[in-house]
């Protein structure tokens, strides 16, 4: 599992995840992802397009990050999940509490300037 961080502009950061979000994958990015998502207030778009597999442990990571941001006044949204990944998000109710957008552009538009 890999992650890359891009500052889209001064108020929005894109974190692209790449690989399997299972136990191994999540552990591989855990510290870096946790640091990027919970240590300061930010607006974050998590690009899931390259995530080929999402298990409950990955959901836990996403929920922790979203909760960390919401308690700091920031916002975290998900973008571009593959259909099966989307199904996992839907059937655990994640879509009810974290906004999910079909692509990064739509997610960006959710943060008006």
């Amino acid at each position, binding site marked *: 599992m890999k992650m890359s961080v891009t500052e889209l502009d001064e108020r929005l950061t894109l974190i692209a995840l790449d690989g399997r979000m*299972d*136990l*191994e994958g999540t552990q591989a990015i855990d510290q870096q992802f946790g640091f990027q998502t919970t240590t300061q207030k930010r607006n974050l778009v998590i690009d899931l397009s390259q995530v080929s*597999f999402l*298990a*409950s*442990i990955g*959901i*836990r990571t996403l*929920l*922790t990050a*979203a*909760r960390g941001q*919401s*308690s700091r006044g920031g916002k975290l949204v998900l973008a571009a999940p593959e*259909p*099966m990944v989307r*199904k*996992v998000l*839907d*059937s*655990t*109710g994640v*879509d*009810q*509490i*974290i906004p999910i957008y079909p692509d990064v552009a739509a997610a960006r538009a959710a943060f008006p300037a």
Partner: protein
Amino acid sequence: MSAESVSPPLHLHAQPAAIAAASAWARACAAQHNLDEDDSYRLDLCISEWVENVTRYAYPDYAPGALELRCAVAPDGVAVTVTDSGRPFDPLLLPPPHTPATLTDATPGGLGVHLVRKFADACTYHRDGEHNVFRMEIRPHAAGEAGTRTSRGADRRTPEPGAFPVTRTDGAVVADEPRSGRDRRDSGFISSFRIFRNVPYDELEKVLGSCPVSEFTEGEVLLRPGDRNQYLALVIRGRLRIHLETPDSDDYVEIAPGDCAGEMSLVDGRSVSAYVVAHDRCRLLLVDGHTFLNRLLTLPHVARNMLSMLAERMRSSNTRSIERAKSAVALAALQRELSVAHDIQASMIPERFVLTPARPEVECAGFMRAAREVGGDFYDAFYIEPNRLFIAIGDVCGKGMAAALLMVRTMMLLAAEASKPVLNQRMHTRAVLESVNRQLAEKNDNGYFASVFCGVLHTTTGLLSYANAGHTPPVVVRGRAPVCYLEVPRNPIIGIVPEAEYGVSELVMPPGSTLLLYTDGVTEAETAGGEMFGEERLLELFRTKKPRTAEMVADDVVQAVDTFAGGYPQSDDLTLLALVYRGDAPPA
């Protein structure tokens, strides 16, 4: 799909590495059975979630056991059976997770089993002797339906457990979560209690049919020590708490639905030894003593079940006592280490320190009192050349062990840099601070920092050259000039920006001058009412008192702060370094 294409079984140890192995195996099975990408995903998900559940919960941490995965052709697809010999656990009885309304309610956990039930087309569980046997079936191309179902809004608001109805191996059809529904008693809920395991239902019904069901409100005390207990209470809904000391003590045992209370005092006929309190709204079935002893205990299996429950309770209470003893030992060890750390620190920075005898022209006295066992403040004073005295004071952010370690590092670096050969007398303090700052900042992943004031006093001319990194300015008393704070260059704290620059200032101290370096533990000392000692009070102290030695200066300040605080415990370390310059005046 033919019988020959069946993948060989996979044997694993229930530890985290098993999940990746099981997942790879699942993909191989899916490929062998020509499942498409979505079905292969579902098989992978179900297997890895279930294997994760087994590795986490089935076995005690210290003894991970085995698990076995078998893949076989099922009538409509592929079936994987996972067998473990851990604690009995029927995943089909787990209630579905509640869908949180907001992020703050979201408890990230307990989703694994739910995902399995959602994504498998059928699941069955049975306990086979000492084994949990869980079977999951994936039927090709069923995902489309599941997908449509889960993406409907109404479904998501009331999540369904998924995979129901299920057929259990004993032939019973489980239409829905069997522990939900209002009429639990009639559906045999009570007969599933541990105490009634294997007891024929009709015999049980005959005995329990006459026993009353009572409701209790949250916090209601059912029994007190000394009471005569009349009933065995079987918890149908809600929870009871058993407290040994007071009805609201933090240390209690919880009795959950399916469990019972009151059996001890019924069995030995003695009075109640603890408080029994309703933790929330409770519904209890009350079995009176006579019925319990004469009709219930005589039913087959009840006595045995009862004994096994009592044995388990005794074991768990033993375990708790051992854990408590262990954590007490661990705490004592930590305390010992802290006290060693305190001693080491005290030997580096004595609480009281006087640097005088050999050098009549300058007197120096230091004082430090840490707010906890170890502190983050420091002071230092030593000669770098026969007539040049280096002085420093600092305050490391934070408190406790992390601050103490950084403090030691900062102090060591300062001493090392200050002791290096002086290339440029005027610029020495600047070079010292810049070099210490660079070294601290370059290896500072945690963002810790420190404020430092340091200077070099030429003991024959009285010239003090000094630099400052975000520290509080010292108090200076020079001849008849008014008592004031020394003007210091405004430069950043050290440890953050490696390339920060530090300016140097100079001041001539005529013989008889006094300089007081201190940390904010002095000016921010607080009374119980929240009033602060403050900078003005510190200046006033110097206006009114005319102490003769550095030691007296230090003592006066400490005493004034202590009197002011009136014994109120302080959160900051209290540290100071007083210097009296006598120049070539004859020693007192």
